[in-house]
């Protein structure tokens, strides 16, 4: 393997990792504020992608303009999901998996009905051009996505760390009851988290659709990746999600360089299995008596 190939793979991995971090943020935020595991996460991203595709075909606009539209389109779903999640019974994590497993089925079938047939891609020429950077040839779309991801993670990090809203969200994540006793409006913090997470997912979907083909069942893999990242980063910290995302991106590109692209899905599944086993009790701490 030549040094350029390796360098190329690492840079591509970092770019991919930035995208992964952005992709996983919504999952991680909802997880930390509600303890719920949202298995529809990837489906929502795919849905955002389809909406973006549909608008792009209809309008011919630059895909970047469609990002906010797709983000806004998912907001009603955020309210619906929040309504459902509020009603989950104990054991909450397991119930949330059951609920969202069902919702996932529903979303996938809905998308299959609306966009049957071939796979779809937002093949905008504005994004497919390549850029030369220090001897490496990179895809402009990927660079753009990585830049957006950095900007989003950065602003979220600042907002969480330095605003009233961020304090409320962090307090709600740590201990909901205690936060409520301290006069923090936990319901509002939860709702804004859902809205933000869903908006992020919708927007990410459009970006995803500029890089990858969409298929109604393609969300599962994104969900698995988001879970891996959330476990790696420990829920809720924007910065560590970014770190975990970059690590995952680099690990993935290097593994694929070695194994060939066809084993990609296998590697994602193994990564989740391995992570769960290695961090046994990390996702759901064992009760200690």
């Amino acid at each position, binding site marked *: 393997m030549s040094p350029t190939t390796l360098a190329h793979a690492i840079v591509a991995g970092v770019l991919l990792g930035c995208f992964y971090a952005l992709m996983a943020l919504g999952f991680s935020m909802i997880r930390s504020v509600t303890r719920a595991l949202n298995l529809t996460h990837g489906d929502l991203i795919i849905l955002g992608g389809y909406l973006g595709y549909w608008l792009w075909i209809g309008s011919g606009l630059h895909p970047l303009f469609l990002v906010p539209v797709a983000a806004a389109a998912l907001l009603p779903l955020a309210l619906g999901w929040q309504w*459902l999640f509020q009603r989950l019974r104990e054991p909450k994590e397991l119930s949330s998996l059951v609920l969202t*497993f*069902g919702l996932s089925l529903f979303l996938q*079938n809905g998308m*299959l009905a609306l966009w049957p047939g071939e796979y779809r891609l937002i093949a905008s020429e504005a994004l497919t051009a390549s850029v030369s950077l220090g001897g490496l040839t990179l895809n402009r779309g990927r660079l753009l996505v990585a830049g957006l991801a950095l900007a989003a993670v950065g602003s979220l990090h600042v907002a969480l760390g330095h605003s009233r809203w961020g304090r409320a969200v962090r307090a709600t994540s740590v201990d909901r009851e205690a936060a409520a006793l301290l006069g923090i409006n936990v319901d509002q913090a939860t709702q804004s988290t859902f809205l933000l997470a869903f908006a992020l997912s919708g927007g990410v979907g459009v970006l995803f659709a500029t890089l990858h083909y969409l298929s109604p069942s393609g969300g599962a893999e994104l969900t698995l990746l988001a879970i891996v990242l959330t476990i790696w980063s420990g829920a809720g910290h924007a910065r560590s999600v970014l770190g975990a995302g970059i690590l995952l991106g680099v690990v993935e590109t290097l593994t694929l360089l070695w194994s060939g692209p066809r084993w990609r899905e296998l590697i994602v*599944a193994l990564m*989740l299995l391995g992570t*769960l086993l290695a961090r*046994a*009790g990390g996702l759901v701490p064992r009760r200690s008596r």
Partner: protein
Amino acid sequence: MPRGGLIATGLVGLALILLPPLSGFHPYYLYLVSTGLLFGTLATSWNILAYAGQVSFGHAAFVGLGGYGAALASLHGLSPWAAIALGGGLGAAGAVIIGLASGRLQGASLALATLAYAEMWRAIAQNWDEVTGGGAGLIGIPALPTLPWPSPDVSGGRAGGYYLSLALLASVLAVFAGILRSRLGLALAAIREEEERAGLLGVHPLPWKLLAFGLSGFWSALAGGLYVHTVRVVEPDLVFSLHFSILPLVMATFGGVGTLLGPAGAALGLYLASELFLHPYVPAFHQLPYALALIVVALYAPGGLGTLFRRRRHGAA
């Protein structure tokens, strides 16, 4: 079981036995009900594991292993019966392997691990072209021998497959009924309720859990093997489909986890309702009942999944 329940069960059983002649050996209805019966088998084997407190999100792994195992064996010249049995063994082995994870993981973590495990097998089937035929899968799987009665051309040979599916469901129900009255059932109930306490009373949890995994995987894989010999093709997205993980969970939780007949009843009911009443009219939404059933279970089952796992054993020593 109360008397009314016994009578109702008997009547449903009788109706299922008599359905082929009563329906005039209608191939479509026989195919439909056979598939419903296979889902009944799947939901009941899911339930065996749930009885031990282990919630699986990955039964597609066992269906798929059974399907591919049986298909490959059949294509290599084994008789379909032996091939299906072999597939069952493969599914059982696959289940025991992921069962080992239950020594370290529980609840939501284990559920996610099973989900990833099914995804892993799907990815293997999808890409190991040399053996599995990759995404295109395998075709030309021999049909099951048809019943000579009333004559193969009347039912398109479906009567045989129908009775096999019925027998498979009956066998898994018999096994589960046996478990409920045995040491295994006692151990599994104790593990489900309080694994730590069970350990203090002399129950070594892991071997019992592995046994539950193995039995559950075996019957799921038999259903998978029978299924591929009915449709006569096998593809990754067909047998490792998320549906084979979701539907047994829906059906069993909706029908009542830990009850003997609930999951099978719910499987038949939900599947037939969806296929007969929704598929023809609103094909896009024919899976709506499953999604709704899950939402109801997650939100309105009193006490959530937790209570669904409660079942009183009545003291038979």
